[in-house]
């Protein structure tokens, strides 16, 4: 090949790459800023952020981890949809097929399961972080509200996914969960009927949960996540204490750290999926109740409360918690302490929130580990 031909070929190649990436691999500071601005994905970030943003202790990266887990759940969920059949006659068998007759099926199901559980936990921790750093204060009130809805969506996604394996665990957890729904005054029974598409957990309920789990709720989640991210930018970036305004380029400093977090998330989910299998019990049987029948673990705090009083635990407490969370940024309007962990001037607010968060955790732990047959108290280490 002549030198002239080679040059023409290289130029054509460059033209092709440049038609996709306008800036190319950035080398100068100006190009790094331009690369951020010219990419659909990257322009979620500004070109420069305050150096403080890079410190892991600022946010613990929990929002980012939640997002990565959601992305991972989308990918593994789409894969599972290739084999899963949402019908009571076929669902359980298709789960067995995924586990035992599909290459990497067990691994992908495990990854989906553990990432889902992890997402519930991490979204909760993210909310705690935002509270303890006072990051819901003006001008971020509305983004806190969006976050509360994202937490509810996360729970709803996890709950609707719980029924799909159509095993005893799924069937009775959803029996308990939808019975809690029915306790809501006036709307409870009709809501349960609408959710199940009938009076029983059967074909209609499975299909509804499937559509909610695979289409409706993920779309709502994606839309709200976009709003949540966009508002972070529009509200002036993540909440930081007043301090040195030194700024660093997002490319490479922040992007590199985000990549490390992605690697960590992938490693943790992979290891979890390799060492622990997602549970799959016997096929769902409406005539045989396991003892005890437990809701998914993140609702066991509620179930523990429902044990003391159905209306209290099933309606009053959850409604009060959600309303309090939604109202919080509009009630606590004092500007002090935003962006600082456990700020002195927010001692009272932090104490109240810590007590509530600890109560949620304690009730969940009790419901998960300390309740046995007939919901009687058991010691988890007892034989």
């Amino acid at each position, binding site marked *: 090949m002549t030198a002239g031909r080679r040059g023409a070929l290289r130029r054509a190649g460059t033209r092709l790459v440049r038609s996709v990436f306008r800036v190319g691999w950035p080398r100068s500071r100006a190009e790094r800023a331009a690369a951020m601005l010219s990419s659909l994905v990257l322009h979620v970030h500004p070109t420069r952020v305050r150096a403080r943003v890079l410190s892991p202790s600022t946010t613990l990266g929990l929002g980012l981890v939640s997002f990565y887990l959601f992305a991972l759940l989308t990918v593994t969920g789409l894969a599972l949809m290739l084999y899963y059949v949402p019908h009571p006659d076929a669902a359980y068998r298709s789960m067995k097929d995924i586990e035992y007759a599909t290459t990497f099926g067990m691994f992908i199901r495990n990854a989906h399961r553990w990432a889902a559980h992890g997402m519930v936990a991490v979204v909760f921790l993210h909310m705690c972080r935002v509270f303890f750093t006072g990051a819901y204060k003006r001008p971020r009130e509305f983004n806190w509200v969006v976050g509360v809805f994202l937490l509810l969506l996360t729970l709803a996604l996890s709950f609707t996914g719980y029924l799909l394996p159509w095993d005893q665990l799924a069937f*009775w957890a959803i*029996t*308990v969960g*939808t*019975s*809690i729904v029915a306790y809501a005054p006036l709307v409870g029974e009709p809501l349960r*009927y*609408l959710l199940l*598409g*009938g*009076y*029983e957990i*059967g*074909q*209609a309920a499975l299909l509804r949960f499937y559509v909610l789990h695979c289409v409706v709720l993920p779309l709502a989640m994606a839309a709200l996540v976009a709003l949540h991210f966009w508002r972070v930018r529009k509200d002036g970036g993540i909440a930081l204490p007043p301090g040195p305004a030194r700024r660093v380029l997002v490319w490479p400093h922040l992007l590199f750290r985000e990549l490390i977090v992605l690697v960590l998330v992938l490693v943790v989910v992979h290891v979890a999926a390799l060492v622990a299998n997602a549970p799959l019990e016997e096929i769902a049987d*409406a*005539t*045989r*109740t*396991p*003892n*005890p*029948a437990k809701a998914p673990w993140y609702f066991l705090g509620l*179930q523990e409360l*429902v*044990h*003391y*009083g*159905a*209306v209290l635990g099933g309606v009053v407490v959850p409604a009060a918690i959600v309303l309090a969370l939604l109202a919080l940024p509009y009630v606590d309007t004092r500007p002090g302490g935003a962006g600082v962990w456990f700020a002195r001037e927010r001692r009272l607010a932090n104490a109240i929130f810590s007590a509530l968060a600890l109560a949620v955790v304690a009730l969940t732990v009790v419901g998960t580990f300390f309740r046995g*047959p*007939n*919901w*009687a108290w058991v010691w988890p280490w007892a034989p």
Partner: protein
Amino acid sequence: MNPRASRRRFVVTAGTSGLAAGSLGLLAALARFAVPDVLYEAPRRIPVGRPEEFPPESVTLLTDHRVFVFRTPEGFYAVSAVCTHLGCNVGHEAGRGFACPCHGSTFDEEGAVTSGPAAWPLARFALSLSRRGELVVDTRRTVDAGFRLRA
């Protein structure tokens, strides 16, 4: 007022309200559509057999329908096996009443709560005799605790 401006305002108002009404109507239609009118569930009027098939002074659990049928000297009655707390299936022990395995609610022979988190007694379903002389449980109709079917 400028007639053009007032005409424009009329068109804008009519247009937006039409759009709003149409959108709300569509949403309402979608919501109503999601409420099923036909259910492919087991029938809720269940023929359970001839009265003489139930021994005198007996309790029979119809597993698939989650209903207990009692035969007493005063007549027949049917008690739901679905716990009123969170929907688990209760078990029955003659003379000691019902117990729910999930959260420890217990009920007496009449289905009234004796302990545990359940807030309401077990449902009593209407019983009738079909023209062919079969007992029929109707789980759509609940009756009060005094109900007995003489058969």
